[in-house]
């Protein structure tokens, strides 16, 4: 009937709007060529954007929407990372690898998956909060910081779990790898940052407690460490969370610089060239100089930023992408201001 067509109930549309309003994008990864950007949402969906189209001069509305969106898991996707062949997603449940070719063909298939070892709680599967890939000597290893306080390390060639780093007393937020030595760093909800040597995985090499350091402790925000990063020379470590963002010298284990972000807890940090990028529970991305001065403070759409990634794969698509508590992905072409926003819908 024409009448019914005219007044079709739009409950579906309403639901979509509600869902979009409450979408949080936790993670993102650029495709090996740097032409596509995949983001993982709180609804377990992976959306793929064609950023070379979005950034082109004659882009239109449609280019700001995902070229493809699929449901990957039931729970939220907390982390995404990529190898030259696979897009690896994790969050609730197994670590799943998707072949980039399949994803771009819009026929995603699970290429392989790695189960998280059964936990002692038995209540819910521990989540994966951080993924890191190390490719050295031809072999590839995947690091996963998990909700059961452990960090698991798999060999990607054989798909076998090679090591487990246990010792944190609360869940692991973030994993960072040292590039020159066989070491890694983990930051945890328990407030400690632990430095592990993979040759002696039973005990951490060192334990840093930023919450007990007067210059960076903030008891009102708690002890937790939400992000850690190590610079390419392996000399410096930056970490933040409940305590202020702080720069530590890795040989002396002493704080050298404290970056103050009043009222905000940092959830993401990384080294980029000579600067440190950090973001957290405020709608800004901070760029810092090593000496503690703020280089810039770039406003962005999400009120809470979960991840900032720079597309270093392709020179002509070199952008800084910001995701967080919003259905929008902010792209900054010159890192100084937001150029455009992509929308997951």
């Amino acid at each position: 009937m024409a009448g019914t067509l005219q007044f079709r109930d739009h409950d579906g549309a309403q639901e979509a709007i509600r869902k979009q309003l409450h979408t949080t994008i936790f993670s993102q990864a650029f495709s090996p060529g740097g032409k596509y950007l995949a983001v993982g949402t709180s609804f377990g969906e992976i959306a793929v954007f064609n950023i070379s189209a979005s950034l082109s001069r004659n882009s239109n509305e449609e280019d700001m929407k995902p070229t493809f969106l699929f449901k990957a898991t039931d729970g939220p996707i907390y982390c995404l990372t990529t190898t030259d062949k696979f897009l690896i997603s994790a969050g609730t449940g197994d670590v799943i690898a998707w072949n980039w070719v399949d994803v771009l063909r819009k026929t995603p298939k699970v290429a392989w998956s790695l189960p998280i070892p059964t936990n002692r709680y038995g209540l819910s599967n521990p989540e994966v909060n951080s993924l890191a890939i190390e490719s050295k000597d031809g072999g590839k290893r995947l690091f996963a910081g998990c909700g059961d306080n452990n960090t698991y390390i798999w060999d990607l060639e054989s798909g076998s779990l090679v090591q487990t780093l246990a010792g944190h007393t609360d869940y692991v937020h973030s994993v960072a790898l040292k590039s020159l030595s066989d070491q890694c760093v983990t930051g945890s909800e328990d407030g400690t940052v632990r430095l592990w040597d993979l040759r002696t995985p039973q005990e951490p090499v060192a334990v840093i407690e930023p919450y007990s350091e007067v210059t960076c402790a903030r008891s009102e925000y708690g002890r937790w460490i939400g992000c850690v990063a190590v610079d390419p020379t392996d000399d410096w470590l930056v970490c933040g969370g409940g305590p202020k963002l702080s720069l530590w010298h890795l040989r002396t284990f002493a704080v050298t610089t404290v970056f103050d972000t009043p009222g905000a807890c940092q959830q993401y940090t990384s080294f980029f060239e000579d600067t440190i990028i950090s973001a957290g529970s405020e709608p800004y991305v901070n760029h810092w100089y090593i000496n503690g001065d703020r280089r810039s403070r770039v406003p962005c759409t999400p009120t809470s930023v979960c991840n900032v990634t720079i597309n270093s794969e392709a020179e002509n698509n070199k952008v800084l992408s910001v995701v967080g508590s919003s259905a929008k992905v902010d792209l900054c072409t010159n890192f100084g201001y937001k150029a455009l926003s992509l929308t997951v819908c």
Partner: protein
Amino acid sequence: MSASSPKEKEKKKKRTIRPEISAPKIQVAKKPKNELSTGRQFSEEDEVEKRDPLDDLKEHKQACSEIRNSIKSISAMKDAGKPDTGEVEELRTQGTLQFLVLKKLNRLAHIRCKKVRDSTNEAKQKIDQYHLQLQNLLYEVMHLQKEITKCLEFKSKDEEIDLVGVEDFYKEAPPEISRPEVTKNDPHQQTLARLEWELEQRKRLSANFKETQNSKNLISQDIKSKKEYLESLQPKLVSIMQATKPVQESLNMRFDEIQEQHQTAQHLPQPLYVLYMQSSAYKEACDKNMAVSIEGDVEAAKTVESQQDQEQDEDSDSDQEEQEQSKRKSKHRRHTTSSDRLEQKREKLLKSHPLTVVLEIKCKEEGTLHLVFSYLLVLKIVTVTVKLLPGKDVVSGNISGSDLLAPDSILTCLYPGDEGKSTPNPANQFELNRLSMDSFSFYISKVGHPYLWVQWLSGLQFLTASPLTNDQVSSSHMEETIRRLRRRVASRLSLQKQLASLEHGSVPVSSEYMSLFPPKISSRLVSWRRSTYDDFAALPYCKHLIDSCLAKDSDLFFTTCAERGSAKLKVEVVVSPDYPRTPPVMAVVLQWRTDHTNLNDVNIRDMEAEVNIHYGELIKGKSHDQLLTNQIQRMLMCFDLFLETEAGNEAMEGPAEFPKEKICPRMTRGPIRSKPYKYLPQMGIFTQR
């Protein structure tokens, strides 16, 4: 001697001159003292008047020549050298005497001169005086002239009064007023008399007016009392009718009644006929709990029917006439009549058919929905007026939702977007514009709501400009619409019940939903009140709901407040008119130490998601009825968990303000440290989603 003589002369001259010069001084100074001298003075003055100046001149010349002669003869004698001293002496005395005469003449001349000057002065003064007088008089003349013109310009009030003509006046007025003998020749008296007559007449008319009004009042009172009497007859007649009903029933005469209704149905306009037919068929077939009847004046319907054929012919003519008339009017600019006519035209446009179809839908215990459908003859649409007769055990008396059952709003958005505020027939818009009735909504209170579903039930479709009646349209919507009507009444009543208890601070949770919530929730609802769209729109943390059209002007807005200890949770609730089909949307601000909103705290955003997105878990089976209270209850539960798991709670010294009553294996989880808002009833614990 000769040498000394001129000196002596000079001395004498000096002597003689001196008194002459000083004379006036002495005179003035001595005047008051010396009576004698004044006497001389006066005598000299009088002398002046007596003497002729010309004579004095002659005398003067004579004296001068005598002196000259004396001097000459003396000199001659001296020249001869034999100066006879006696003769010389005599001559000298004579000459000297002549000087006296000269002195006298000189004095006289002075006095005369003074006199002349005085008289000149006097004359001058007189002239000035006369001049002044003249000016005064001229001024007076001017003033008087002004007065005269003023008087001439004066207008009496009576000139404005439109008096009876002179001839009529003499004809009509009694002689004691008209007094022809005086007034015929004196126009002033005539005017006075005419004014008097006018006054007399006016007095008489006003008395007449009062009298008439009194009689009118009397008559209207009479009419009123008669009307009252007639009205009192109505219940009596009704009771008589009621009394005869059992007889009819016992004689099994109901068949006639139906027959009669069907007979009446013949006179229904087509759309209402379709509606009547379809609804009675639906009633017979599927739904015994509804009643269909026809109400209204059958006779009037018959006349409308017969008129309609004629009108179709007349319409075109009358249109032309109207146009011409309106042209004429615009020329004459007679506003009052044209606006009256416009009003009449508007009324004509909104005129409805005298017959209406009444549909009564009984909804179990909740009450009866009373729908009156009428057909607008000119606009060719069907409108409905709604009344809800609530059942006995329906809770009423809440403030915030008092208009939920109001006839105006109870059926809005029965189908999405169908607010029933504008006419569904696109062709109507032109006619409405022509009579400058810009918005149809203004007339809804008069004619009822033209909901789209009403048109469907009447088989009217307005996809093209001309309405087509179609039985299929009606029958295909009948079932769905009746279903929706019932559900709407039920949901509105249940919403009202929920609001009533929310207002009292209690969140009712029915037994079937008990398992969704933990046994203990420590935060309490402290207030629940109605809010407005504008208040809502002003809140920064609600902006995203308005931007994405989840909160519209037509929705109902509530503000509620919950408390636990020093923490406060303010919830803005948006209830759609389509509730519970469209679930309520909420936005919160949590006030504890600082204000937490979705703008600065991800956990608040998650809290809102618990009710805005995951509401599906709060609905069991088909019943949506407890949705709002369940959402509020979940909000309270999340409020508890937020406080119990918030980092600041434990960091403070001494016992925590909010003891951990809920069991949650993980306080936080994931990168954004989500809180365990999800309740697992089997284990009685809380986890993250």
